[in-house]
């Protein structure tokens, strides 16, 4: 039996850090010889062990933390009591300047607070969107549809459609349409004209997330398609679809 055949029993325990000193030393000595088989095995085991982090319950920060954070940025550094009495006359000008700076500082902090609150609101809305997307993607009866393009550089796009909860489309690395154009998602029925399922623009990194409640039944749909349309979308496609995903 070679070292590797014997040592591969240790990969998971090594990655998890549960090996005793002797076994760990044996494997470390072997890894020091840069054994490719064991290094790959340990790498895979480490990835599996890293997934155990999902066992930790997700925790929302308590409201108290938010209050304390906001209170901290609103606090005004206005402690002047340490000034010695003999310095009053000589420091009047400095004091006026200090007060002006403090007022300016307080204004800046108030702006930062407003900015923080606005970002928090955006993040809360975004989190809610993601939760909804996940609910659609992971519900019973949801179909996964891959939309592909004949253009070799265009990425694959994935959609999840649940008759009861709606349709969610996720994409990465999509090319940005021109400023006056938008992407439009269509449900192509087996019979009749395409039905719009929403318009969307990817973010600057090409990521896109569209949640839609298409006015079409999944059983009557033949495919999903994405076209490039003038901003605001069109009642019917005016260009050839760039991505198509059949439902059959």
């Amino acid at each position, binding site marked *: 039996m070679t070292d590797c055949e014997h040592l591969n*029993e240790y990969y*998971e*325990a090594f990655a*998890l*850090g*549960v*090996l*005793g000193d002797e076994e760990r030393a044996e494997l470390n000595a072997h890894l020091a010889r840069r054994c490719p088989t064991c290094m790959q095995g340990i790498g*895979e*085991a480490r990835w*599996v*062990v890293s*997934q*155990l982090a*999902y*066992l*930790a319950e997700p925790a929302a920060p308590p409201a108290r933390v938010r209050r304390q954070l906001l209170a*901290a*940025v609103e*606090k005004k550094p206005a402690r002047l009591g340490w000034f010695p009495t003999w310095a009053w006359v000589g420091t009047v000008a400095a004091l006026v300047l200090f007060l002006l700076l403090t007022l300016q500082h307080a204004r800046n*902090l108030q702006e*930062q607070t407003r*900015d*923080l609150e606005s*970002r928090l609101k955006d*993040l809360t809305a*975004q*989190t809610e969107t*993601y939760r909804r*997307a*996940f609910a659609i*993607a*992971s519900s019973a009866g949801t179909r996964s549809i891959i939309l592909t393009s004949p253009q070799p550089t265009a990425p694959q796009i*994935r959609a999840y459609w649940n008759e009861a909860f709606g349709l969610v489309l*996720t*994409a*990465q690395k999509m090319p940005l349409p021109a400023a006056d154009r938008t992407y439009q998602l269509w449900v192509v029925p087996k019979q009749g004209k395409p039905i719009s399922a929403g318009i969307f623009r990817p973010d600057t*990194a090409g*990521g*896109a*997330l569209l949640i839609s409640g298409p006015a079409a039944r999944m059983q009557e749909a033949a495919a999903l398609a994405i076209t490039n349309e003038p901003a605001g979308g069109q009642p019917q496609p005016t260009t050839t679809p760039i991505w198509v995903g059949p439902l059959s």
Partner: protein
Amino acid sequence: VENYSFEAKMPNPEQWLDQQRRAEVVRKLIGSLPKAQQRAIELAYFEGMTHSEIAETMNEPLGTVKTWIRSSLLHLRQQLAEAR
């Protein structure tokens, strides 16, 4: 506070969904293990105990603890590979 800056980024939607699916696989699989095996994994991962320490804490044979942990992780690897 002077140099205060704040940046929060949400993950890419596709990555986020992928993470959620993996989290579900991990929680379901570990949750479906017998309680003693779950405890062994928790003691190893969250408490940083070795095989011997876990065996002593749980009053179980060392070989049993080793088998529990290895088989659980191999099973998890297989399930995660299938979920990809």
